[in-house]
């Protein structure tokens, strides 16, 4: 099992900087996710690791071996990297049967006929596609093609799996199922995996570690829980979690020795645990962030609550999503279906004061 280290990676396409000074440290056996909106450079970074793209600057180390470094004129071609890649469009060879597709990496490596037979069959069994071995890719469903693509990656027992949005072309239901299977497969094989996705739910559910990228710049690396509980800036806070975190801009003011945020629609008194950290920041513009599930709705006035009007109700299975507005701002609150709320009603949002986030409005950086 091997680790992957990326140091100061920069890749430009003409004038556009796709990846900028990226540093990542991927431990062995880790299921590592590169997460970000489309065009954030996550696939570019992955292709650099695979050796399919040459970066302009920086170093890539696989298994403590330097494989890419423009500065030192090091470039190991993808053929020699022992990485296997799964593509979004599966990239199955259309003229070959499933068997031939899976056998291809072994044939290229001049393995013996009997070994190829044995390994392809074992792989097909592992993925539950044994009955499809004689078919051509175009005779397969999306999910089956996905498995064949995985099979082709697994069969050669590579040191690293690279996956570029492998589930993006599947329908929602199948995507959830394959997500679980991928995770199980990873637990079984223990191969270090770098996985690119724009789907934060996917990232949160299967990733051991998640790196969030935006415009080619790394925003934060952490476990899914770390990203969720303590995002490093407004981008991560807003990107992770569904429905997204509610954010409200305001001015930090001091009134009768207590720190408050003047939100325009109301004043929010900062809880005592934040005071220590907020002292340096007072007077500046801040963003108050709170997740939809960290709000209770009250019918009557409560201290430190924000008054809002109910706009719309969405009953989604076990939860009730309440959409509210206060002034120009809109919010989403996750409540329970048993809650007696009507559209048009005025309610008070009581924030869980332990779980609020405060960001600097200028830089977006997290203050607390």
């Amino acid at each position, binding site marked *: 099992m091997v680790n992957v280290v990326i140091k100061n990676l920069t890749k430009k396409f003409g004038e556009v900087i796709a990846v900028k000074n990226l540093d990542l440290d991927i431990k062995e056996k880790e299921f590592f996710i590169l997460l970000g909106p489309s065009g954030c450079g996550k696939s570019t970074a992955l*292709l650099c690791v*695979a*050796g*399919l793209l040459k970066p302009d600057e920086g170093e890539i180390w696989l298994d403590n071996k330097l494989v890419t470094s423009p500065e030192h004129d090091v470039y190991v*071609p*993808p*053929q020699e*990297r022992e*990485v*296997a*890649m799964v*593509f*979004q*469009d*599966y*990239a*199955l*060879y*259309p*003229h*070959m049967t499933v068997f031939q597709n899976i056998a*291809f*990496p072994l044939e*290229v*490596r001049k393995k013996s006929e009997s070994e190829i037979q044995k390994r392809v069959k074992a792989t097909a069994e592992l993925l539950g596609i044994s009955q499809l071995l004689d078919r*051509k*890719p*175009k*005779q397969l469903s*999306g999910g089956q*093609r996905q498995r064949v693509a995985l099979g*082709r990656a697994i069969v*050669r027992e590579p040191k690293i799996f*690279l996956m570029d949005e492998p589930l993006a*072309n599947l329908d929602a239901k199948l995507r959830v199922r394959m997500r679980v299977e991928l995770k199980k497969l990873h637990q079984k094989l223990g191969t270090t995996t770098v996985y690119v996705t724009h789907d934060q739910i996917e990232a949160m559910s299967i990733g051991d570690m998640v790196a969030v990228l935006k415009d080619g710049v790394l925003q934060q690396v952490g476990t899914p829980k770390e990203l969720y509980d303590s995002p490093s800036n407004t981008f991560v806070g807003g990107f992770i979690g569904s429905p997204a975190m509610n954010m409200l801009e305001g001015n930090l003011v001091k009134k009768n020795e207590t720190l408050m945020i003047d939100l325009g629609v109301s004043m929010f008194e900062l809880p005592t645990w934040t005071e220590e950290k907020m002292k340096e920041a007072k007077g500046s513009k801040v963003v108050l962030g709170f997740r939809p599930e960290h709000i209770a709705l009250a019918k009557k006035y409560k201290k430190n609550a924000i008054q809002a009007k109910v706009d719309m109700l969405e009953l989604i299975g076990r939860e009730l999503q309440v959409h509210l507005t206060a002034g120009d701002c809109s919010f989403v609150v996750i409540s329970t279906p048993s809650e007696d709320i009507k559209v048009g009603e005025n309610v008070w949002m009581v924030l869980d004061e332990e779980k609020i986030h405060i960001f600097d409005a200028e830089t977006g950086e997290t203050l607390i």
Partner: protein
Amino acid sequence: MKFPRPRRILLYVLLILFAFAYLLPFWTCITTSFKTEKAVIETVPVQPASPTLEPWMEALDIMGRPLLNSLTFTLFATIFSCFIGSINGYVLSKIRFKGSDIIFLFFSIGIFIPYQTVLIPLVLTISRLGLYNSIEGLILTHTAYGIPICTLLFRNFYKDVPDSLIMAAKTDGAGTLTIYRRILLPLSSAPFVVAGVFQFTSIWNDFLFGLVLARGSEALPASVALANLRGTTTAFWNVQMAGALWYALPVIIVYLILGKYLMSGYMAGAVKG
């Protein structure tokens, strides 16, 4: 598209008229080729009369060797130009390198160079290579002249082959040649048919290169031999028509065999669906 009934009848009448006008010379050619010399003079061209195989035999006597010559250099030049074009197309579409666009531009210019402008340097080059009046010389010339159009055809085809297929093959461990041989070549039946049919017909139909590069009988192409059938003083129409039909036969066969593949979309189902 479905037309209302009266319009459809009109359409068919028009189409039949066009087909008639188009096929009439061909029909005349066939009827004449089966006539004796006397019947050619005495009967109307479109009317079949006193059928005989004589003109066909006579034409084959004269055109046999040239037909074989043409078949040889056309087949070889077609195969060579298609393969070289396909390798060029692969390199220019999938292996990006500095200046590849410029090189492709030069290839494209090659398509538009008229035959006549290169005749003198061509004859000089071929004769200095010792290939004047030889099949090899014609193969070389036609191959070289076919490379630009074949390159263009294959490059445009390979451009639509998803890059991920090439990337997958690379990470699977395949080198440049293996990727060409194992991935792209098996997918190329459609452009090979298109380029092959195009090259075969244009090389087979070529007159100018054959005329200036092969004066003797060793390499005389059928196109030139056909022109020679005309004679200087008298015209044996029946023999000429039979010769023309002999000459047309290989191209017709190629179209009959490969025509249906011209439309085939082999790439269907290559990626997601």
